[in-house]
C-alpha cells in the first residue's frame, strides 16, 4: 500500500560531493589486490567470414601475458544473449560482425594485454556481408519474425480519404558513449565462487550469464555495482560479454582480473541504437485528421535478437505518439545484418516509432499548407472519446492538451513563427525554422514479468541509522538519492540517516535491469514495502506493550507518534531491539493493473503515460547545411516530482542527448561492415556549444500521477529525450522556407550539415 505523504525536495545528488572531489569509486577505481591481472580482447577484422585458423602463438609469448582464453576454455554456455542465443562470447566457426570478440588475454598490465592481442594471426574465408536494412529486406535476412498489427481498415480508409500521402523515412543509429566505458573486475573466492564488479545496468542477468558460462550455480556468483558512469541502455545487455570474459580469465588464472575496454574497442564491439527505416501511406481529411495509416517498419538489429524483439514492440506501441489512429496497420521487420547487435538505448524503440508518426503529421500539415502544430493538436487523443490506443488501451491520464496549449503560449510560438517568416523573406542564405512537438511515452516493461522489484532494509539498534538495498543501479539518474529521500520521508528521518549502498545480487536477488524508466518506480516502492513491514513490527510491539489504540502512527521529525504515546525514533528502535522485535525486512513490489497479449497485440502494457512538449527554433545555413539551435522551451510532466532538481537534470540532459541523435551523431559503416565512427574524434556527441542558446525548461506544475506510483511521481528517465523531435522538425521547417513552404522537403535523421544541404538541393529541383 502506498500512502499519500508527498515530498518535493530539491537536494544535491547523494554522491555529489564525491563526484566533484574524485572520491566516488567506479569499477576501475576499486583498489586492486597486488596480484591483479589485466585483460584485453582480440576481435575479428571481418564482418562475415568462416574462421579458418586462430593462431595465438605470438600472443602467448608476448611480454607480460599470463593466460589466453578462447571458446575452448568455456565449460558451459558460450553465449551472452539475454533472451535468445545468438551472442557467442567467442564464436567457434563463423565471424558475424567486424569487431566480434575471438579470444582474450590476461597480462601484467592493461598496456601489455592490449599490445598482445594485436599479435594474433587469424585466417578467414570471407563471406558477403549484409550491412544495410534495405539489403536485409531484399534478402529476407531477419533475427526474429516481425509482427503485423492491424486496427480497423486502413486500406479502405486511405483509398476513400480526401487526401493521401506516401513516403519513406529513416532515423539513424546512435552510440551510447557513456563516459565510463565497459569495464569489469572479477575476483576468485573460495569454493570456485566469483565476486564480480561490473559496470552494468543488470547485475542479476550478469550473474546468471556467468553462472551458465562456468556451468556453476547462480549462488556461486555475486555481482556488485555501486554506481556506473552512465548507461543509457548501453550496459543493459552489452556489459555481459565483458563481465563474462573477465570472469573466464579469472577462472583460468585463479587470480583477480580487471578488463577495462579501450574506447575504440568498446564502441567497435558493442551494439548501438537501432536505426529504423519506414515506408508509409496515409489518408486524411481536409482538416488533416488521419483516417487511415499503413506503415512498413524495419530496423537494423545486427547479428542477433538481443533485445530487438522488445525494442521493435515498443516502436509499434509508440507509432501513435499522442495521436488517435482509428485505422492503422504496421508490418514490422527485424533485419539481421553483419553489424554489432543493436541494443537498448534510452527510448528503446519508442522514440524511433514516434519519429515516424511525427514525420507523417508534419508532412500532412505541409501538404495542406497548415501550421503543423495545428494539425498535431487536431489529431491528439481526446479525453472522453478517441481515447483508445491501437493496442486497445484506454488512456486515462491524458494531459497533452494542457501541456501543449500552455507551451504554445509560454513559448510565444505564434508570434515567433510570424517573425521567422519575416526573417526568412529578408535573408537569402540563412533561414530559421520553428516546431513544436508532443511526447506521450508509456511506462512499464512491456515484458510483463520484469515489472517487479525487491529491497532489503535494516535499521540498526544502537543509533537508528537505516541501510537500504534495492535492485536499482545508480547511473546518474539519481535513483539512490530519490530512494533515500522516499525512505527518509517514510521514517520521518533526516536524509543523512539513510544509506543506500551498493546493489548486490546476494542482497536483493532476481532484479530487473535498471531500464524502461522504471527503476525508482519499482525499487522505490519495494524499499517502502520493506519499511512498512518494519513499521508493522514496531506498531504491533507498541500496541502490545503500551496498549495504545489502533490507528496509524505518524513518523515525523525523528519522532514516532502513536495515539496517546510518542517516542523518539532512536529510543523506539533501541527499545524494540531489547524486546526482540525484528528491525530488518525485505520488500517487494509488482506493478499492478498491467497485462498484455503480445500475439493479439492488445491489453494494457503500461501503468501510465508521461507527457511533455517542446518548441525549438533553429537557424540553418543554406550554403553549408550548418545549423544551430537558437531557443528551446520545454514543459515536461514529472508527476509530483520527488526531487525537482534531479528531474530537471534528466529533462535537460535527455533533450540534449535526443538532439544529438537527430542532428550530429552519425554512426557510419563501410560497405564491408567496418565501423568508421568509434572514437570521440570520429563520433560526435553534443558539446557545450550545442546546448540551445536559450533553454527554458519547466516541470509541469500540475503534474500528479493518477496511479499509485511512489510519491505520485512520474519517471523522467527516457521520455524527455523525445522532446528533441522538435529540433528535427524545426530544421525541416527552415528547409521548407527555401521554397516558401510550398513543397515538402525530404529529410532523414540525423540532420547533419550534409543531409540538410542535400535536402535543400533536392527541394530546389522539385516541381511545384
Amino acid at each position, binding site marked *: 500500500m502506498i500512502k499519500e505523504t508527498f515530498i518535493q525536495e530539491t537536494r*544535491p*545528488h547523494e*554522491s*555529489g560531493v*564525491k*563526484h*566533484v*572531489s*574524485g*572520491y*566516488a569509486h567506479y569499477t*576501475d577505481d576499486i583498489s586492486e589486490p597486488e596480484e591483479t591481472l589485466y585483460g584485453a580482447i582480440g576481435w575479428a577484422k571481418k564482418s562475415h567470414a568462416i574462421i579458418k585458423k586462430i593462431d595465438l602463438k605470438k600472443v602467448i609469448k608476448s611480454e607480460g601475458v599470463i593466460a589466453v582464453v578462447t571458446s575452448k576454455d568455456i565449460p558451459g554456455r558460450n553465449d551472452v544473449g539475454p533472451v535468445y542465443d545468438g551472442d557467442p562470447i567467442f564464436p567457434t566457426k563463423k565471424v558475424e560482425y567486424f569487431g566480434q570478440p575471438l579470444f582474450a588475454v590476461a597480462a601484467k598490465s592493461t*598496456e601489455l594485454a*592490449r599490445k598482445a592481442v594485436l599479435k594474433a594471426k587469424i585466417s578467414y574465408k570471407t563471406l558477403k556481408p549484409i550491412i544495410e536494412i534495405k539489403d536485409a529486406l531484399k534478402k529476407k535476412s531477419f533475427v526474429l519474425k516481425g509482427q503485423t498489427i492491424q486496427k480497423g481498415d486502413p486500406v479502405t480508409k486511405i483509398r476513400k480519404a480526401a487526401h493521401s500521402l506516401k513516403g519513406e523515412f529513416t532515423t539513424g543509429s546512435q552510440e551510447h*558513449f*557513456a*563516459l*565510463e566505458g565497459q569495464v569489469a573486475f572479477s575476483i576468485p573466492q573460495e569454493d570456485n565462487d566469483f565476486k564480480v564488479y561490473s559496470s552494468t545496468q543488470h547485475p542479476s542477468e550478469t550473474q546468471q550469464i556467468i553462472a551458465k558460462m562456468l556451468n556453476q550455480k547462480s549462488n556461486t556468483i555475486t555481482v556488485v555495482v555501486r*554506481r556506473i*558512469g*552512465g*548507461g543509457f541502455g548501453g550496459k543493459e545487455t552489452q556489459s555481459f560479454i565483458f563481465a563474462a570474459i573477465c570472469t573466464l580469465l579469472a577462472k583460468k588464472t585463479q587470480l583477480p582480473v580487471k578488463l*577495462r575496454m*579501450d*574506447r*575504440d574497442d568498446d564502441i567497435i564491439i558493442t551494439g548501438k541504437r537501432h536505426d529504423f527505416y519506414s515506408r508509409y501511406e496515409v489518408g486524411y481529411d481536409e482538416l488533416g485528421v488521419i483516417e487511415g495509416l499503413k506503415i512498413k517498419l524495419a530496423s537494423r538489429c545486427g547479428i542477433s535478437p538481443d533485445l530487438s524483439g522488445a525494442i521493435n514492440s515498443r516502436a509499434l506501441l509508440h507509432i501513435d505518439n499522442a495521436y488517435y489512429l482509428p485505422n492503422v496497420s504496421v508490418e514490422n521487420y527485424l533485419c539481421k545484418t553483419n553489424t554489432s547487435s543493436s541494443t537498448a538505448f534510452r527510448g528503446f524503440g519508442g522514440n524511433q516509432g514516434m519519429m515516424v508518426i511525427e514525420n507523417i503529421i508534419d508532412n500532412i500539415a505541409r501538404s495542406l499548407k497548415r501550421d503543423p502544430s495545428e494539425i498535431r493538436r487536431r489529431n491528439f487523443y481526446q479525453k472522453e472519446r478517441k481515447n483508445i490506443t491501437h493496442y486497445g488501451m484506454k488512456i486515462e491520464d491524458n494531459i497533452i492538451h494542457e501541456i501543449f496549449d500552455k507551451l504554445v503560449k509560454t513559448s510565444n510560438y505564434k508570434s515567433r513563427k510570424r517573425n521567422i517568416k519575416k526573417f526568412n523573406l529578408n535573408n537569402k*542564405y*540563412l533561414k530559421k525554422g520553428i516546431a513544436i512537438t508532443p511526447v506521450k511515452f508509456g511506462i512499464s516493461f512491456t515484458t510483463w514479468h520484469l515489472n517487479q522489484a525487491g529491497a532489503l532494509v535494516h535499521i540498526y539498534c544502537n543509533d537508528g541509522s537505516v541501510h537500504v538495498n534495492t535492485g536499482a543501479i545508480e547511473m546518474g*539518474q*539519481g535513483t539512490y538519492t530519490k530512494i533515500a529521500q522516499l525512505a527518509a520521508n517514510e521514517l520521518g528521518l533526516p536524509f543523512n540517516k539513510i544509506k543506500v549502498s551498493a546493489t548486490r545480487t546476494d542482497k536483493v536477488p532476481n532484479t530487473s535491469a535498471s531500464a524502461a524508466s522504471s527503476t525508482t518506480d519499482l525499487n522505490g516502492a519495494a524499499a517502502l514495502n520493506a519499511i512498512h513491514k518494519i513499521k508493522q513490527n514496531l506498531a504491533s510491539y507498541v500496541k502490545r506493550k503500551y496498549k495504545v489504540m489502533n490507528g496509524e502512527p505518524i513518523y515525523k521529525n525523528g519522532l514516532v507518534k502513536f495515539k496517546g504515546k510518542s517516542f523518539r525514533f532512536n529510543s523506539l528502535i533501541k527499545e524494540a531491539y531489547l524486546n526482540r522485535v525484528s528491525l530488518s525486512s525485505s520488500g517487494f513490489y509488482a506493478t499492478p493493473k498491467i497485462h498484455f497479449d503480445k500475439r493479439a497485440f492488445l491489453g494494457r502494457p503500461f501503468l501510465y503515460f508521461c507527457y511533455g512538449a517542446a518548441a525549438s527554433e533553429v537557424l540553418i*545555413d543554406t*550554403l*553549408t*547545411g*550548418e545549423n*544551430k539551435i537558437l531557443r528551446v522551451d520545454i514543459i515536461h510532466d514529472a508527476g509530483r516530482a520527488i526531487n525537482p532538481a*534531479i528531474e530537471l*537534470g534528466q529533462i*535537460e*540532459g535527455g*533533450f540534449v*542527448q535526443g538532439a544529438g541523435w537527430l542532428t*550530429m551523431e552519425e554512426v557510419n559503416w563501410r560497405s564491408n561492415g567496418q565501423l*568508421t*565512427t568509434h572514437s*570521440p*574524434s*570520429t563520433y*560526435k*556527441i*553534443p*558539446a*557545450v*556549444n*550545442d546546448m540551445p542558446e536559450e*533553454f527554458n*525548461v519547466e516541470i509541469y506544475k500540475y503534474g500528479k500521477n493518477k496511479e499509485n506510483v511512489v510519491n505520485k511521481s512520474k519517471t523522467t528517465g527516457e521520455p524527455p529525450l523525445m522532446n528533441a523531435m522538435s529540433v528535427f522538425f524545426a530544421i525541416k521547417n527552415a528547409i521548407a522556407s527555401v521554397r516558401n513552404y510550398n513543397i515538402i522537403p525530404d529529410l532523414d535523421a540525423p540532420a547533419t*550539415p*550534409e543531409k540538410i*544541404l542535400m535536402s535543400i538541393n533536392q527541394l530546389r529541383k522539385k516541381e511545384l
Partner: protein
Amino acid sequence: MTSNVIKFIHENKIVEINNPDPNETLLNYVRTKLKKTGTKEGCAEGGCGACTVVLGELKNNKINYSAINSCIIFLPTLQGKQLILVEDLISKNGSLHPVQDAMVNYHGSQCGFCTPGFVMSLFAMFKKHSKFKDDAIKDSIAGNLCRCTGYKPIIKAAKSLNSKDKIDHFTQNKQNTITLLKKIKDESIVIYKKDKRYFAPRYVQELKKILKKNINAHLLSGGTDLSLVVTKERKDINSVIYMNSINELNYIKNNNNYIEVGATTPLIEFESYIEKYYPDFTAILKRFGSVQIRNVATVAGNIATASPIGDTLPLLLSLDAKVVLRTIKKTKIIPLNNFFIDYRKTKLKKGEFIGSIRIPLFPKNIFKAYKISKRFDDDISSVCASFNLEVINKKIKNIRIAYGGMASIPKRAKYCEKILLHSSITEQIINKAKEALEKDFKPISDMRASRKYRMEVAKNLLHKCFLEITQKKLIRVNN
C-alpha cells in the same frame, strides 16, 4: 646540467621519479602509481576531457595554470611543473574548493564520471580569468564531454563563481609553490630506459647536439597527435626529443611585415595574439581543439604533422606563411606552399627541426576562414577554407585561397585563384571560379562527409566569402 630524474610539485612537495618510462602517460602514472583515481580515462586520445588535470608553470615569477589532457601527455614532460589533481582541490580542513562547491549546489554532476574533468577545467578557468563570462565558460569546457546533464547546470555553476571569493588555498600557498618550482626548473632531461630514449633539452644548442646523435628521434611538442601512436596504435616510440622545454623557441615577434611564431609557442597564446590581425584565424583556432589541446599544441606541430585536416594549415597557406627550418648548421626558409609533399609527408628532413613560422601581414587585405564540421566544438573539419585577397575598386588585386579536407594535403586552389586574379567580382566570375575548384581538388568520401558534399561546400564557401565581402556582413550561423 642534465638528469634522468623527473621532478615536479605535487601536494606542496617535490616529487622525484627516477628514470621513468618515456612512453608512460601522465594519466597512467596518476591512476596506477600515485593511486589517485579521481582522474578518469574516457577515451585515451584527448577527445573527452575526463582525464583533465591542471599544470602550474612558472612564468615571470607567476604561476600559470593550464588544463591539459593527462591521457596524451607523457610523464617526463611533467618536469619542472606543478601537478594539480581533482583530489588536491579540497583544502586541508576538508572543505570543497569553490568550483567543486558550485558543481554540487547547481547539480552539475549526474553519473559523475566526467565531473572531475569538468571541475579541473573550471578550476583552470577560475585561476586564469577574473570574470567568468559566457564565452570564457564555454571555451573552458568545450573539450569536456558530458552525456548526462546537457551542460546547463554546469554553466550555471560556472557563472555562480563570479560572486565567489577568488582566494583559494593555491593562492594562499603561492609563495611556497613558486619557491619549489624555482628549485626544480633548470634541468635538461635525458632518459635511457631499455631501448627507449627521451631528451628534453632546454636550449637550441643542446637540441642540435642531440639531433645530431639521434637523427631518427621523433620531435615531440604538444604530443596531441604523436601520443596516439602509444595509446591507440599500442606501439612504442623509442626515441623522443621534447621541444617544449626550449624557452628560446617560445615567442611571438612582429616586425610589421610578418609575425614570427616560435616552434614551442602554444596555440592558446598565438590565438590571442593573432586576433588583432586576423580575427577569423582566432575563431578557427577556438574550434581547432579544446583548451586542453591548445594549451600544449603548437603551430609548428600542426605543420610538421601535415594532416590534410590540420586546421591551421589552409589558413597559413592562404596567408603565404613561411617555415623556418633549422639544421645543426643552417637555417632555411621554405614557403609553406612548397612544404607538403604527400599525405603526411613534408620536406622536413632528418636532423632538421622547425624553428619558427613566419606569417606575413597584409594590412590591405581581406582575410576570411571557414570551418565546416558536424559539431561546432572540437571536431575535425570536413572542409576548411581560407581566403586572403585584396580588392581595389571591385577588382581582385591579389588572392590566395587554400582548402583543408579536400585533398591528401592541405592545398592552395591554384586554378580557382587564376580565374579570380585581376578579375572583377561578378556572379559570372565567381561561378567560373567555383567550377575551377573541380580542377583543383578531387576530395574523398569518409565518415565525416561525402565527396559530393565536400566539393559543393567548397564551392559554396567561395561563394559565401564574396557574398560577405560585397554585402559587408557575416553570413554565418555561429556569429
